[in-house]
């Protein structure tokens, strides 16, 4: 019985020939891979794609591989292959049915379908014959690299390689306009937090905090004013209640009412003023 040292990625993609997908960040070593690596696929029909990959997986499972399939919160799926008697993931298919959430840039959800729609195919030779592999178009490859650069450059300075790649590919290319058009149509930068632990952050943050200090003082003063006003109002209310009780208990009601009315009116006026001041 044949035993497998590594999974043959060609076999899986031959099975996916009729499905709509693209391989994002096509690995240069394909179909070879390093143990622990993965491939990202954008899929139109997640269920069909998973089922086709699993149908190929069966022959690996029969030879001792374990395959673990996990559904992510966003509906994406991991298909993880574990070689026989090994607890570490040998290879992962990371399947997406929508764009990931980016922290640094807004990307319209429709861009996902644009990538699939405009995909290009490259023909490959496998043991079972020729088949087509689907990748993002050159334009979408540049846009995706740009998004990756924006998303990661602070945390991973090496991601500047994507910017170099874009600049090299565009050069004097008339497609420059299309690249920018697509970028503007589908993406928008997010307002960034100023990182506090950088020279940039320190000067900007200091100015921000200084302005904030004045505003905070004004707010504190206003709060104090309102508190004082409320204390006065409480005192007036207490006085009115005392007088009301005195007149209603000891004199005929109509006399009490006659004397209390001006106080009640004053109280109402003060309340109204308070509302106007406080808005």
């Amino acid at each position, binding site marked *: 019985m044949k035993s497998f040292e590594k999974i043959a990625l060609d076999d899986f993609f031959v099975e996916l020939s*009729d499905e709509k997908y693209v391989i994002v960040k096509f690995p240069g070593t394909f179909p070879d891979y390093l143990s622990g690596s993965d491939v990202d696929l954008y899929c139109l029909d*997640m*269920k069909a794609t*998973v*089922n086709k990959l*699993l*149908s190929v*997986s*069966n022959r690996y*499972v*029969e030879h*001792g591989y*374990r*395959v*673990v*399939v*996990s*559904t992510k919160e966003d*509906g994406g*799926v991991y298909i993880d292959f574990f070689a026989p008697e090994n607890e570490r993931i040998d290879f992962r298919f990371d399947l997406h049915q929508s764009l990931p959430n980016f922290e640094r840039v807004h990307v319209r959800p429709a861009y996902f379908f644009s990538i699939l729609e405009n995909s290009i195919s490259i023909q490959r030779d496998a043991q079972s014959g020729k088949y087509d592999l689907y990748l993002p178009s050159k334009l979408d490859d540049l846009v995706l690299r740009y998004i990756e650069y924006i998303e990661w450059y602070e945390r991973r300075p090496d991601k500047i390689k994507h910017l170099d790649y874009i600049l090299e590919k565009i050069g004097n290319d008339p497609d420059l306009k299309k690249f920018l058009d697509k970028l503007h149509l589908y993406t928008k930068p997010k307002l960034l937090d100023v990182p506090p632990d950088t020279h940039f952050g320190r000067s900007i943050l200091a100015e921000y905090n200084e302005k904030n200090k004045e505003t905070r003082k004004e707010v504190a003063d206003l709060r104090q004013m309102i508190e004082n006003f409320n204390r006065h109002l409480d005192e007036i209310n207490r006085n009115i209640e005392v007088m009301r009780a005195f007149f209603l208990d000891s004199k005929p009601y109509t006399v009490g009412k006659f004397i209390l009315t001006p106080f009640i009116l004053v109280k109402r006026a003060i309340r109204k003023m308070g509302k106007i001041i406080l808005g």
Partner: protein
Amino acid sequence: MDLIEVKKILRRRMIISRYDYLLIWGHGLQHRDEILNLLRQDEDIEILKIIKHQINDMVRFVDVVYSYDYAPIEHLRGKTKYLLDTVPEVIFVFFRNLNAEESFVGEGEFRHIECRNIKRLKETIRDLYNPKTCGKRTEHHVVHASDNEMQTDVMLKYLGFESGTGVFARPNFVVDAPYHLASFRVFELKIVSIDKVICWIPHRENGQINPRPVSIEETPHYKALSGHDEEYKKYFEEYGGILLTDDQYLEKLRKIYGNISYLTGEYATNYIIAREVEDDKFYILDGTHRISSLKKSGIDKIVIMIARI
């Protein structure tokens, strides 16, 4: 892909699929197997659940069944009077209608939408099995069927399924697991020794029915394949429609055994589903018929799906 294939796919996308039910009244139960066979032969019908129901109050039950009918209940009283004299036991057959050819029927205040396929099916069954007088079919219908999915939802809720048609939601959206399993987001494919898989069989003891773990060889399914048909028939007669609500029958078991093609062709991802209870020991959740057939065929190791529920 040629034009015919494309047309098939487009047609399929435009087809309405919905949940319906057929109700076999007490006086039709003697024809239960024949009626079920008619449904099984229809490729646009996928039977999901068969439920046996005892009726305590027939008048109220008839009111519930016809509560969302297009005709007011007062109009139906005359038509349904005969039901009060029937056996107070019915069978519900819930199914997915894969080709609901909805159209308007009737006139005036009785005009309503119904599925032409269901209408045809109902009339076929009634022509065959309604009681006859002088050789002519009476209107003492042996079956009633839903006009629309809302009526199916109402009946499921009446029977205690709070989510109505939501009960048929699949537990995992990437593989075809049966709806009656709890949902799971992670599963594993693994090859295991077939003898490590334990089956669950309902068992009546002291008036209560409880599931009991047994080996594959002890299941009525395996015994039927070994020539003991009666035990399988008795098993489904006793528990069918109560604890066993899937559409299972002896011919189907024999067909599975005769054409065993586990995880090949169009069944490449039709896994036997189990849950790991101990190291290397698995309780089956779905696939007792298939595993019995595989065991009887002499298979000693199988690839199963271990659902992490």
